[in-house]
């Protein structure tokens, strides 16, 4: 059947099962937008900046488990998307971005709104394509989704010159995608699984360390919990892995790393077996490498072979999908029928409980004093029962959210972990709201981060999304200020604002409800209002203790057991 490139685009997205895309029109994508106007297979959400389209698609992908999809125009549309592409790639989130390009004959002529986006995004994506013939479009789209969603997921760009949208050809849907050069491994090597299980049963001080891989392998969180309980082993999560095990599970010792809990970092430093499950030994996790888990044999399960032995040498690498490998491990456990070393584990747990007694996340909140940012996070946890979808921006509030929110389930903590993108939180919530419109969605943000994508309040209002924005306002770039205080003798170079907008009024101007809280009483009232039925978003501007720091902390370059507790 003869179809135009634009019609093929729509047909392919329909066949890929796409329900929502996020985008912003422009000259080079007009043919595609015209085809989108005439179809009803998927919704198009109009964002206010292309970066937000990518973050929204990212948030949508994390909550729905589907591939995120966005559509932007050529030149500045595409370059604006680069941050979102790099963000999704760093956090292994499946995200396909279609970019317009100038017509084929004009490529290379420095045409209006021309940018070499395949060149620009090469290192910010898992892969990218320039479509040079309309006949290649369907297969390219198919491959883009395949590459984005399999193996270690990531972002993929498909650059489509404007005239491809108008050109016609016979539409052929490639039923199967088989790429000889791309065959990601899914199941773990049987011999390695056997060895891993033997090591787990022999360990006297085992430690499970799980990351974002648990989120990408849908359903694997339940397997992680089962494994932890069968081995009676403590579990720590990375920032990306939070929710991988319920916060109130007695095996959970909190997040590890730079702002991890004392018990998690001490346990990693003293364990004799560290099982890394879909995590990549990021520098914010390991601290000083030569002092990281010095006594541990390391088992590393990861779908991406390059993550293994990149930073920390794995004694027992297992390449495969985390969900499949965990199932293989559980099967092998019941096959071997062994039991862990109960005597040793008893001593190990006594030690961990001792570390727990430090109560490293304790916060003193006086009734009359300034609102502590940690108090806000805890109150939001209480009012949402730990069941909200939480997005964050980047900085102090992000770490407090990670430490204090307490997640019951996976896929509910959306944060920019790898790239650390300020401005991620609000658009990610816009995406999450498209995936789960009936669930409470909270954006924890700071007065610096929120201003990087605040225009998305217009998107939230346009689609009447019931997002609650919780702004921990200390009138500083809090994390920058904290580092300047600790490592630069309190020279607060450009880390504060001489003028901040009236956020409540700004929120009202965008059509939402704007609230302000300076006292605990006002905070309680505002939270109550925010989580009651509302027509659209609610924005709470909360004045928090201005110079509160995030603790505990492992200073950059220090070892995990050299934590600063307060």
């Amino acid at each position, binding site marked *: 059947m003869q179809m135009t490139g634009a019609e093929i685009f729509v047909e392919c997205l329909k066949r890929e099962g796409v329900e929502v895309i996020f985008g912003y029109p422009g000259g080079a994508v007009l043919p595609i937008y015209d085809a989108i106007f005439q179809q009803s297979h998927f919704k198009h959400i109009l964002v206010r900046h292309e970066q937000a389209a990518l973050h929204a698609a990212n948030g949508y992908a994390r909550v729905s488990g589907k591939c995120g999809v966005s559509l932007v125009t050529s030149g500045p549309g595409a370059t604006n998307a680069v941050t979102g592409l790099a963000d999704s790639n760093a956090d292994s989130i499946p995200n396909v971005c279609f970019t317009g390009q100038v017509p084929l004959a004009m490529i290379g002529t420095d045409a209006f709104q021309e940018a070499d986006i*395949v*060149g620009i995004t*090469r*290192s910010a994506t898992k892969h990218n394509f320039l479509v040079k013939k309309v006949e290649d479009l369907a297969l390219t789209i198919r491959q883009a989704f395949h590459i984005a969603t399999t193996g270690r997921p990531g972002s993929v760009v498909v650059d489509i010159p404007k005239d491809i949208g108008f050109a016609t050809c016979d539409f052929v849907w490639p039923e199967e995608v088989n790429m000889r*050069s791309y065959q990601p491994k899914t199941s773990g090597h049987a011999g390695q699984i056997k060895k891993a299980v033997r090591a787990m049963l022999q360990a006297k001080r085992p430690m499970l360390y799980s990351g974002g891989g648990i989120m990408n392998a849908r359903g694997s969180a339940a397997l992680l919990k089962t494994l932890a309980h069968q081995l009676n082993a403590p579990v720590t999560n990375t920032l990306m892995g939070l929710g991988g095990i319920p916060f109130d599970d007695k095996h959970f010792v909190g997040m590890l790393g730079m702002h991890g809990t004392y018990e998690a970092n001490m346990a990693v430093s003293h364990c004799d077996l560290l099982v890394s499950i879909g995590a990549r030994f990021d520098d914010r996790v390991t601290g000083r490498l030569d002092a990281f888990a010095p006594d541990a044999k390391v088992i590393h399960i990861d779908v991406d072979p*390059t993550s293994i032995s990149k930073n920390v040498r794995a004694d027992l690498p297992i390449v495969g999908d985390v969900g499949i490998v965990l199932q293989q491990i559980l099967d092998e456990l019941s096959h071997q029928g062994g039991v862990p070393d109960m005597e040793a584990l008893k001593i190990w747990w006594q030690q961990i409980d001792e570390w727990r007694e430090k109560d490293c996340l304790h916060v003193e909140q006086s009734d009359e004093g300034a609102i502590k940012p940690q108090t806000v996070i805890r109150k939001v946890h209480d009012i949402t029962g730990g069941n909200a979808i939480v997005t964050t921006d980047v900085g102090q509030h992000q770490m407090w959210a990670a430490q204090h929110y307490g997640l019951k389930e996976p896929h509910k903590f959306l944060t920019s972990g790898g790239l650390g993108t300020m401005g991620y939180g609000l658009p990610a919530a816009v995406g999450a709201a498209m995936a789960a419109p009936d669930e409470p969605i909270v954006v924890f943000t700071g007065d610096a981060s929120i201003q990087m994508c605040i225009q998305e309040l217009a998107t939230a209002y346009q689609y009447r999304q019931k997002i609650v924005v919780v702004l921990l306002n200390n009138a500083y770039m809090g994390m920058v200020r904290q580092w300047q205080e600790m490592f630069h003798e309190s020279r607060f170079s450009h880390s504060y604002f001489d003028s901040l907008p009236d956020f409540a009024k700004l929120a009202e101007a965008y059509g939402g409800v704007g609230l302000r809280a300076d006292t605990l009483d006002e905070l309680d009232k505002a939270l109550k209002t925010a989580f009651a039925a509302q027509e659209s978003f609610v924005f709470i501007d909360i004045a928090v203790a201005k110079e509160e720091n995030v603790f505990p902390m492992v200073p950059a370059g220090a070892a995990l057991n050299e934590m600063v507790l307060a």
Partner: protein
Amino acid sequence: MRHTITILVENEFGVLTRIAGLFSARGYNIETLNVAPTLDETVSRLTLVTYGDDKIIEQIKKQLNKLIPVIKTEDISHMVHLERGMLMLKMIDAGERRQALQDAGAHIIDHDEGNYFIAEFTGAPEAIDAILEQTDAEYIIEMTRTGPVGMRRGSKGFVV
């Protein structure tokens, strides 16, 4: 340590940039790089010479394999293998220089008596180095050489 890695890739535009970009983005060294299509026109073959300790070389191989158009890689430095590169020398034609190069195994492929000549030499990288060392630099007008291409010995082939 010096490693020679052969790589089979999909013969599509941009693949060379992906490989070169990987090395620059991650701070690895490329000593030389050779690329040409194979008999199967959908496949190109690269020979890449790089330096690094075992950990870096391991990462380089993994990162190369992670690139979507890379079909397979082989580190032939670990095997009994052969490497050959080519040298072209344009020299002032004076004295016994032309004869000396011919005696060393070079071919004279262009010659204007008493003016200049061009010699071509094919050999292992060390043999090319040796030729250059024994040649009087004063008389060299122009020099160009390729990085090596290579394959392992034995009847087994490195193919798709």
